């Protein structure tokens, strides 16, 4: 059932989303928006891994569920990263009273 969507289509979609995430990281000024873009990039990598797992040929002798476990671990890591990210943003906001990345410039030079 899933064979008739070629692998390359998934890779193109994953690459497109990854690039959009990268663009978001580079342009957005609000740290929370940057965190969201990083979530986009991580999800794109997840999609890539799973597409290769399901439609690519595994290495001879490879375990049946490598890609799935890798994706599960990446989902857990992404959740932990967002949690810490927002904690740090709150700390920054409390100390700096602003949520604009460009205005954090106390250490110049």
């Amino acid at each position, binding site marked *: 059932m899933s064979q008739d969507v070629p692998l390359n289509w998934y890779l193109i979609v994953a690459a497109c989303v990854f690039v959009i995430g990268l663009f978001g990281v580079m342009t957005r000024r609000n740290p929370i928006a940057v965190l969201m873009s990083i979530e986009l990039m991580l999800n794109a990598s997840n999609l890539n891994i799973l597409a290769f797992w399901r439609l690519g040929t595994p290495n001879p002798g490879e375990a049946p569920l490598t890609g799935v476990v890798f994706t599960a671990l990446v*989902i857990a890591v992404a*959740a932990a990263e967002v*949690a810490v990210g927002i904690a740090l943003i709150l700390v920054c906001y409390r100390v700096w009273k602003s949520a604009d990345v460009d205005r954090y410039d106390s250490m110049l030079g």
Partner: protein
Amino acid sequence: MILSRYLFIGMLLLFAIGFAVAPLVLIRIIAPRRPTPHKGQTVECGLETQGETWIRFRLQYYIFALLFVVFDVETVFLYPWAASYVSLGWYAFVEMMVFLAMLTVGLVYAWAIGALKWQ
């Protein structure tokens, strides 16, 4: 053939959206529309204040959401263990207890420093 079963979930999702939006559309047709400025105002005694962010007071919302994220990921890892426990040995029990112990450390920590208290 899991794919075909989720097809029904997709159909049900579209149906549910239709089922929810239909009355909203219906009102547009049936219900009277006499918008007056007063009706537009939010239910508020007095002006809606552009209050300064009251970060200290609302901090525990964030802490509860944070605890939820970590425990949610934990429960997701609990399900495969529970499903395959029949064919696993005692070591899987010990391994999962270590995993749970690590997360109870987080809960005990949040409890002990009073993060769980609702000011």
